[in-house]
């Protein structure tokens, strides 16, 4: 399944690419893209792994850029 998030306060393009690399390495992630310009995070992963992945993704984002908030996109 695919899920989209908005990264509020994403201010650094280098961080965006670091996030992308780190999330890509998570177990169960099929595809991920972090778009610095649109501040969008799109992740495709196994459905049953998704809930735990979301917490891991939040952790990665917070670690790389502490001021960024992960908000589910409608």
């Amino acid at each position, binding site marked *: 399944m695919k899920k989209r998030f908005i990264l509020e306060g994403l*201010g*650094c*393009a*280098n961080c965006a690419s670091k996030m992308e690399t780190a999330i890509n390495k998570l177990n169960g992630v099929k595809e991920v893209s972090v778009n*610095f310009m*649109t501040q969008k995070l799109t992740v495709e992963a196994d459905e049953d792994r998704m809930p735990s992945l979301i917490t891991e993704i939040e952790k990665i984002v917070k670690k790389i850029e*502490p001021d960024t908030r992960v908000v589910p996109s409608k």
Partner: protein
Amino acid sequence: MNDNMRKDLMRIIAGAILLLAALLIDIDQDWLKLALFLTSYILVGGDIVLKAIRNIIRGKVFDENFLMALATIGAMIISEYPEGIAVMLLYQIGELFQSYAVDKSRKSIADLMDIRPDYANVKKDDGLIRISPEDVKVGDTIVIKPGERVPLDARVIEGVSMLDTSALTGESLPRELEPGDEILSGCINVNGVITAKVTKEYEESTVSKILDLVENASSKKSRSEQFITRFARYYTPVVVMLALLLALLPPLLIKGANFNEWTYRALSFLVVSCPCALVISIPLTFFSGIGGASKKGILVKGSNYFEALANAEIMVFDKTGTLTKGVFEVQEINPKGMMGRIYNEEDKEGPNVERINEISEELLELTAHAESLSTHPISRSILKAYGKDIDQSIVSDTNEIAGHGIEAVVRGKKIIAGNTKLMKLRGIDYTAEELIGTVVHVAIDGQYAGYILIADELKKDAAETIKKLKATSIKQNVMLTGDNQSVGEKIGRTLGLDKVFTELLPADKVDKLEDLLTLTSDKGKLVYVGDGINDAPVLARADVGIAMGGLGSDAAIEAADVVIMTDEPSKIPVAIKIARKIIGIANQNIIFAIGVKIALLILSALGITGLWMAIFGDVGVTIIAVINSFRALKIKD
């Protein structure tokens, strides 16, 4: 400017006033002066220091905040209060300006892609309800009022209007709409009220597909983007090590070297080192380019394709649907068998144009009536060329012979219209023609009357496209077609193509493409342009696959790397021009940023420039690079 930025700005201004006060007012007490400096520093750079500490706790040491905190606190420790504060001040102003610039470009890109419909008016038993497009189901009836955006792909069931498709195609001329027409989400209804039946869910609708494509385009990174990611990874640790050595080694090794002096140099060195200018401006350039191109009806699925397009050497075109319209139209009416009549009537003066037109029209009229009941594409094109109403009462005894043609009696005359096989079958003495396209021979009352030529037509801008491509240093323009040799070669000559390969089966096209791929130089790329319908393998095999007329065709959008939303080949030279511009801007930014930084790194290490120039090296360069990348948004025709 948002609220956060405004708050930051107020804080910085307050700090700056305190700094000025400390410098200009004659204060005797040292402690008071120190207190003013410190308050000013906390106002200006307190948040940076806090962020730096927080990031260190989180295990992230070498970031900008850390560098700035270290540099300015370092300056304060060696009693350079005004300089420490001023540097922090400049840094903050620069950062503020930078986020303002990024914010602004984000907005302009968002505006460019503002094709997302906000709501749909769904018709229910008790009237219209306004709901989110995501909640509309296939088969629902929606109403689109003038000025509203089409929320989902649908088919018009009622109403006549004009449709503005410019957001999707870049085409400014509105399209006429009537019941039965398909409407695509993202277009704007100009004047009439339209009622339509939804044919696709929101997720599957054109507007979602396009937005998805453009927003995710950045996942396919260009080489320059990959380069800066790699560059930043090694660059920062190396620079920090060098700065450390710069601070420690000279005081230890050189006699009389001042520790403070070398620390100051190391700090300047650190400030220059931030790779932000590249890291922000390069993705910004590509993203703006993708946004700008989509505004022209050109969807580029990844920034790597800009690179490939900019280096295009060989262009390979499919024929039908790409260079030609793919629609069969009457190209010529030749009443050669009826000419005798003219000669007999006007024995001396010879045939005049008016008279020829008259009998041509008569031939077309009789044939159109004979073919009026047939649904064959050829018959349809003849009827379309005739264009007038058919009077069924004058037609009788229609007989369609599959694979041959039609016989009918029209206005009492026996009409036989069909291919050479039919002429032979009926023993008509026809003259064979070496013509490109499908020839319909016509006999009236057993006498050969002439023929009607039906052929696919070249697109209006096809010739101009090839001309422009040649001017943009494309080395070879090649056409691949399944059509026969005479048709292919004539088109090749008309358009000025360098090579034409004819009578190819779909599999042969891949083989031909492989051969052509070997002809490109090391850096040169091969671009294939097709309609995406039956040439997916070829599209995939080329360095860049461009699909034409992508509007509404999912297959084309899936298979290609670049999708031209309209069916105009003239968008291809435009795409190449955009690609070259984008690559140019990206290269300028890379060379400018790295060049200035290296120069300033050397100058700071030698102690020629101080923290002031270092700030320019960091923030100033970033701002200039970001402003340069704005140019990618503005795409001229």
